[in-house]
């Protein structure tokens, strides 16, 4: 229990820390108000724009995987609210995944549609404040990440399995990003929307993790759970939690005590959550470290020129 207790405190502290990180400049401004120091506070639009950057990334990935087209080619806006041009997408030629399973192809198409709607919803909510799509890299990013998990040159568009692993990379991160943002939003309507988008990202994550777990159970020799667990490990390393209390659970089994009415039983780890069965939350700094593939938060990875907006 001491451990669970510690984790609970940690999670509260980290959410506090998130507020301090995001509101750091504002707090400093308050402290030195007498000196008339310049202030720049993080507002709801900044947070929604941060989310919009992530949704651009997810929507491009799924749309390219299912149609071979970028989201602007299927009618989704990528310019800023005031008309600034959107960025570029670096991806292999003919990225449409040669799906073998019609079931997985269906899941992919569903997810593509939902991520597109998240982009459109956030752009609509932000109006003139919406940022343009930043430059996105879906080629070198995955290849570099592949090296870290022992699959050099990893191509998420090559097969059903690779596509699911590519999805795995994004979905849990989306959950933790929206979870971390929830307590920062001040407008109830935005909070409600963000909680609803977070839930959909968790549905996506649950879907991908269930399918991968099932594939591993059917073909244990393929090492699918092991690859997913390595991805979780990379994320926890990038966001700085791997050495202490990792905020990412891979795919596999754990022994649980349940209600103590029987011997310990074996549980799957489909859900990515802490010892209290609460999903993890990440600060914007931690999310940036992951999507930049840089523990120090230097632009790179999926966003070679960084995010657009205030939080980058």
């Amino acid at each position, binding site marked *: 229990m001491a451990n669970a207790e510690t984790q609970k405190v940690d999670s*509260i502290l980290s959410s506090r820390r998130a507020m301090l990180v995001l509101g750091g400049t504002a707090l400093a401004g308050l402290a030195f108000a007498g000196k008339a120091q310049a202030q720049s506070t993080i507002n709801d639009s900044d947070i929604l724009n941060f989310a919009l950057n992530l949704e651009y990334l997810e929507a491009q990935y799924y749309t390219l995987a299912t149609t071979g087209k970028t989201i602007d080619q299927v009618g989704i806006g990528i310019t800023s609210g005031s008309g600034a041009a959107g960025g570029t997408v670096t991806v292999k030629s003919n990225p449409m995944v040669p799906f073998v399973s019609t079931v997985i192809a269906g899941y992919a198409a569903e997810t593509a549609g939902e991520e597109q709607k998240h982009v459109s919803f956030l752009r609509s909510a932000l109006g003139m404040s919406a940022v343009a799509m930043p430059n996105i890299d879906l080629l070198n990013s995955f290849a570099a990440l592949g090296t870290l998990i022992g699959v050099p040159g990893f191509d998420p568009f090559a097969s059903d399995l690779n596509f699911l692993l590519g999805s795995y990379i994004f979905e849990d991160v989306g959950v933790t990003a929206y979870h971390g943002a929830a307590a920062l939003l001040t407008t109830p309507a935005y909070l409600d929307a963000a909680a609803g988008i977070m839930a959909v990202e968790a549905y996506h994550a649950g879907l991908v993790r269930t399918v991968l777990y099932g594939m591993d159970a059917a073909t244990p020799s393929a090492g699918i759970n092991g690859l997913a667990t390595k991805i979780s490990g990379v994320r926890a390393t990038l966001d700085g939690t791997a050495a202490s209390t990792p905020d990412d659970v891979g795919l596999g089994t754990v022994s649980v005590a*349940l209600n103590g009415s029987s011997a310990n039983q074996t549980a799957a780890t489909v859900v990515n959550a802490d010892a209290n069965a*609460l999903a993890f939350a990440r600060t914007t700094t931690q999310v940036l470290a992951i999507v930049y593939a840089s523990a120090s938060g230097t632009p790179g990875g999926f966003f070679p020129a960084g995010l657009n907006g205030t939080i980058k």
Partner: protein
Amino acid sequence: MDKLDLLIKNAVSRRTFLSGAGTAAAVTLIAGCGGGSTPAPTTTPTPTTTPTPPAITDADILNFALNLEYLEAEFYLRAATGTGLSSTDAGGSSAGSVTGGTQVSFPTAALQQYAVEIAQDELDHVRFLRKALGSAAVPRPTIDLTNSFNGLASAAGIGSTFNPFADSNSFLVGAFVFEDVGVTAYHGAATLLTNKTYLTAAAGILAVEAYHAAEIRSLIYGLSVSSGVSTYLTDANKVSAVRAALGGGNETQITGMNIVACAPTTAIAYDRTTDEVLHIVYATGAGVVTKGGFFPKGLNGTITATAS
């Protein structure tokens, strides 16, 4: 009492204090600020307005959620082990009884592991909420896992009886009854919570319920494809239709392109009011309802009856 619980307790009492005694507090504050220079009031003001009903506190909302977690924990624990919550986890001697629920025989290790995982998650949610609420935590209400499912099956047109513990496929349909509802309940509660720590915790549980919901929905769909038998998929969608009728719509039927339950235009998950959730778990439609379905004696706590 550890430091965290103290912190949470203080937050609860502060919220209760603010909502329940706001006027008194304001008066005290003014008097205190005025110090000795403020003349003592010579008349006692008479209230001229009808007192407003007590505001719903964060503790009320967390207790509402705790009732739902008791239900889910009992369902999954009994399916996984044949035994429900311990007396300690259920709130001791004041806990209500539980009818029904037996260990399910799962045909594969993976299916067993999914059930065990969700059982542990829901048990953890019960324990987390009970700890956060401390002495304010309500005990487990009386829960019915037999007649409730039979009634639901009848209303859904599945049959006159339905035993979700009969086999693995039936278990998935039984699990489906709960998970999407959990998502909509926590989503609806998010903007009602005033304490940021509670909000973050509730959002974390919301996400976990959504993981579960996707897991159950994708297993039901995948099963229908791999077995070529769509009976259980059809049954789940009949359950979805009943929930929609009772709980203000807010449903997405399972198809190969609809694993996620969300609003079709925005892809944002649905939310439900506490009234809509109560109508579903009480298995009773419009009107003032205080009990029924899974909770034959009603929920414990403040939020127990529908307004209409």
